[in-house]
């Protein structure tokens, strides 16, 4: 099994390198000369020379990439054009906030999705299936930034119940609306996937055998849950990773100070080092999460262990 884990990690390395290459080349997409893209507004000639040497703009591209990669690996992602502070310093608190929001959203999505999915899996009726499908399709089709605005209109503007934006004290109140909005996407997907998994597990003969042995339904459910768990974990892990990377829209609507909000302001101020750094960190997190989900799934399912 250890061999499988190592092989999986080995496979992820070229992907991670490829991702870093894509992030590196992003700067060269921008119109204009890449040097001016990373220069702070007020730069002294010494600073310019220093940056030139750091990035190696006069050297050929592969060398530039390697220099950039080398610095990125030790955490040096350049400095923000706007504030002059190191990019890493700006990103670190933002990531924390984004993870917090994503966690809240995934827990919420799991509770609702799980409830719906298990219910639909046990109550095999047309109506239940329709509800689950409706939730799933709605969740995928609805523009979540719009949903956020609608929720703001209902709960903040009209009912004045919850704060509309920002992050302040008390924290949990500010988190409710964004979390619900963000949770709308995976909720349907989780519900659908759980439902399909539950149905398939219950169809299997070992479940019938358990019932025939006289086991109470509650205990049978535990067995069913054990079989459904790997799939659910995988889906949840992937959705969590997606939310982390795709939270920019929701964070913008609610002015939640996470990585998405950071990227948004970086776009407006053309602060490309921040933009590039954030994208790199988020993409790497995504790759790492995919890897973790794969390994976790393999560990939980004894059938995959054999090589």
């Amino acid at each position, binding site marked *: 099994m250890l061999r499988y884990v190592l092989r999986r990690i080995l496979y992820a390395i070229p*992907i991670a390198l490829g*991702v870093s290459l*894509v992030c590196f080349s992003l700067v060269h997409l921008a119109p204009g000369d890449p040097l001016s893209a990373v220069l702070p507004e007020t730069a002294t000639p010494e600073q310019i020379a220093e940056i030139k040497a750091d990035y190696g703009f006069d050297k050929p591209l592969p060398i530039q990439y390697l220099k950039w990669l080398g610095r990125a690996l030790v955490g040096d992602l350049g400095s923000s054009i706007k504030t002059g502070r190191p990019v890493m310093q700006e990103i670190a608190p933002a990531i924390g906030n984004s993870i917090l929001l994503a966690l809240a959203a995934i827990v919420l999505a799991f509770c609702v999705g799980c409830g719906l999915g298990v219910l639909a899996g046990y109550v095999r009726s047309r109506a239940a299936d329709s509800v689950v499908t409706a939730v799933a399709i709605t969740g995928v089709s*609805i*523009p979540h930034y719009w949903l956020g605005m609608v929720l703001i209109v209902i709960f903040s503007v009209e009912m004045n119940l919850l704060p509309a934006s920002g992050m302040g004290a008390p924290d949990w109140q500010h988190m409710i609306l964004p979390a619900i909005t963000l949770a709308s996407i995976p909720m349907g997907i989780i519900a659908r996937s759980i439902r399909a998994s539950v149905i398939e597990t219950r169809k299997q003969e070992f479940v019938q055998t358990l019932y025939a042995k006289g086991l109470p339904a509650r205990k049978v459910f535990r067995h069913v849950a054990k079989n459904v768990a790997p799939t659910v974990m995988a889906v949840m892990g992937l959705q969590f990773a997606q939310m982390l990377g795709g939270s920019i829209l929701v964070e913008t609507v609610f002015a939640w100070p996470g990585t998405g909000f950071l990227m948004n302001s970086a776009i407006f101020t053309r602060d490309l080092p921040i933009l*590039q750094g954030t994208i790199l960190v988020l993409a790497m997190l*995504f790759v790492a999460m*995919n890897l973790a989900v794969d390994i976790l799934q393999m560990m939980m399912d004894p059938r995959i262990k054999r090589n």
Partner: protein
Amino acid sequence: MSTITTTTPAPGAAAAPVAFRRASKGFWHTVGRRLARDPITMICAVILLLIVLAALFAPWLGLDDPFKQSMARRLKPFGYQGHWLGTDELGRDMLSRLVFGARMSLFTGFVPVALATLIGGSLGVVAGYAGGRVNMIIMRCIDVFYAFPSVLLAVAISGFLGSGQVNGLVSLTLVFVPPIARISESVTTRVRNEDFVEAARATGAPTLSILFTHVLSNVLGPILVYASSLISVSIVIASGLSFLGLGVTPPNAEWGLMLSTLRQAIYVAPLTAILPGAMIFITSMCFSLMSDGLRNAMDVKV
């Protein structure tokens, strides 16, 4: 059952002209008939048709000029002085802007998917049919792009390219190429291993002919179903890009852009502010449901 005759004409005898009775229509005809019987799909089709027609014929529908501003008439409620859906934050007629916005939103939603289907589909089919090294190289490159969450990739590319409609189209197309390529590759690999493809190869047919006659006809269905499911996603992300200030720029009318500029008005005219988003939702939902209907009609397990 039909009678199987075992008497055969002598070899070399010319076949007598026979009258053919077409026993069944083709595959797509059957799919069309099944679609027509599905009520949800039909309703969505009607709604979409209305929206598309309105978008196509927008300049000739006798609507107000979507660009005409009026400081005096900002954020008026529904029905004010002939503005059926009120006015926006610069005094422009909402109904007209929504209809003209449909042109932009549908365009930036549909074109990237179409382009990505062409590019990603070709890549995937080539990779799937070729197998081996070629497959591995192509799919590994695709995997790198697949390692980004879609919204992040779209924002990344757009963010660096700059705003503008063309840049938005480019970034969205790049976002959709990897998933379509993946699906195409897996379906093509499955078809390629079927016996009838082997039988075609056994006749010594040139590869291109096998691809077009045998592989493509069986692979197109699942690919199109998947691509159609991406249209709704594309509309949402495209509008999302405009919402962030990438993609379409003011003063153009586009639903996502309108949502963004109306955000400040949310306290004053909440209903007007959320109107463009409702359009995105309805359009996206209809495409989603139709795609589901298409999948059911084609009995595709993708």
